[in-house]
């Protein structure tokens, strides 16, 4: 469809676009990862450590979650520092001692509030996406 006059220029354009999309995804993730982690731990019936949490996200997203799993650990620490998660250290034979997390009461209350905020935001954004999609 595009008149491909200059191959180099279109390549640069594509990589620019990829970079922008990558940045957009990262900015979206910034707040959403915390919400998802709280939801995962709220639904868990036992304490979970980093790798287990990462695997649950991967399973839910059919093996390809929009967030890199390496980015989950610092967010777990952030939630824990804010009192939304409690944690304990358990020694492991297979590697470093593991930190197991569970959601606190404050965490549950926060999750309920964040869930409402997320639903409102999603409906608001979807409203525009639907109308724009119909127009174009």
């Amino acid at each position: 469809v595009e008149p491909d006059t200059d191959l180099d220029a279109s390549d640069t354009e594509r990589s620019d676009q990829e970079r922008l999309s990558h940045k957009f995804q990262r900015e979206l993730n910034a707040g959403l990862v915390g919400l998802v982690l709280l939801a995962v731990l709220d639904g868990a019936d036992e304490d979970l450590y980093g790798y287990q949490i990462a695997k649950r996200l991967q399973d839910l997203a059919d093996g390809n979650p929009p967030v890199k799993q390496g980015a989950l650990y610092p967010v777990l620490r952030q939630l824990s520092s804010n009192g939304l998660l409690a944690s304990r250290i358990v020694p492991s034979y297979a590697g470093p001692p593991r930190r197991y997390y569970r959601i606190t009461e404050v965490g549950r209350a926060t999750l309920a509030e964040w869930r409402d905020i997320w639903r409102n935001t999603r409906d608001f954004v979807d409203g525009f996406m639907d109308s724009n999609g119909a127009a174009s």
Partner: protein
Amino acid sequence: MNERTAPRSIEQYLAALRAALAGEDPALVQDALYDAEEYLRAEVAANAGRTEADTLELIASTYGAPEEVAEAYRTTEKQVRTALAPPPRTPRRTALGRFFAVYSDTRTWTALFFMLLSLVTGIFYFTVTVTGLSVSFGMLVLIIGIPFFLLFVGFTRVLALAEGRLVEGLLGQRMPRRPVYPVKGVGIFESIKLMLMDRRTWTTMFYFVLMLPLGILYFVIAVVGICVSLGLIGGSVMGLLLETGVGSGAVNVDGMMYHGPSPLFAPIVIIGGVLLLTLVMHLARGIGRAHGTLAKHLLVARTDQT
């Protein structure tokens, strides 16, 4: 670019991550490396059918390339620091305002609490370390000497984690979240050798022994400083009250009569007491900062070490 340098083993991945995090806080680097190692070892174990190199190839798309992961830690760390920092204080314009602003700084009060607490923790750490070392060396000729020493070193690492949490909570210095653990994949003798050669094994013990004299010093500074300044303020206020006719003109303690400073001097003594108390607060905040740095140097490995 990433394909060219894609790590083929856990060790290579960790080395790349350490390089990507060069210059960051050592406590952050230790946490990031342990987080990655936990994930990578679990992932390699879960894919027992594949070789380590094959599994590591997929890591960039699931866990993230070392550079990406390093970036995530940097960004999130900044957010945590901003979110957990005490609310920004309104900057005082005058020198006098800045001098007295020390009272509204949360760090002053937490540092003061740390100074009082350090007498108790100092005695405990000192006793544990001196007992552990003496018993270890005493039993070195017996067969149980070595296991005992290993247990003791393990205990100092857990204790160092606990002290780190205390230092982070009260003094605001970022400390690691997981205890140091023995290197995997090497024999028992190699692992003992690495532990003995690890600078941190010895600096941790040194820190614990040092905590007794430091704890005594901190406790004495805090208690004497506060008592003397409150005594100067309280005694003069009481003296002024007694002079104005409240009570008998003197305080009787066990048959000894104490008089406050003369009404002429009392205001000067009160001002002196307030100044001294404020100086003690400044000192507490300064000691808090200095001790945080000391703890980080002795309890956390430098970034160029494992």
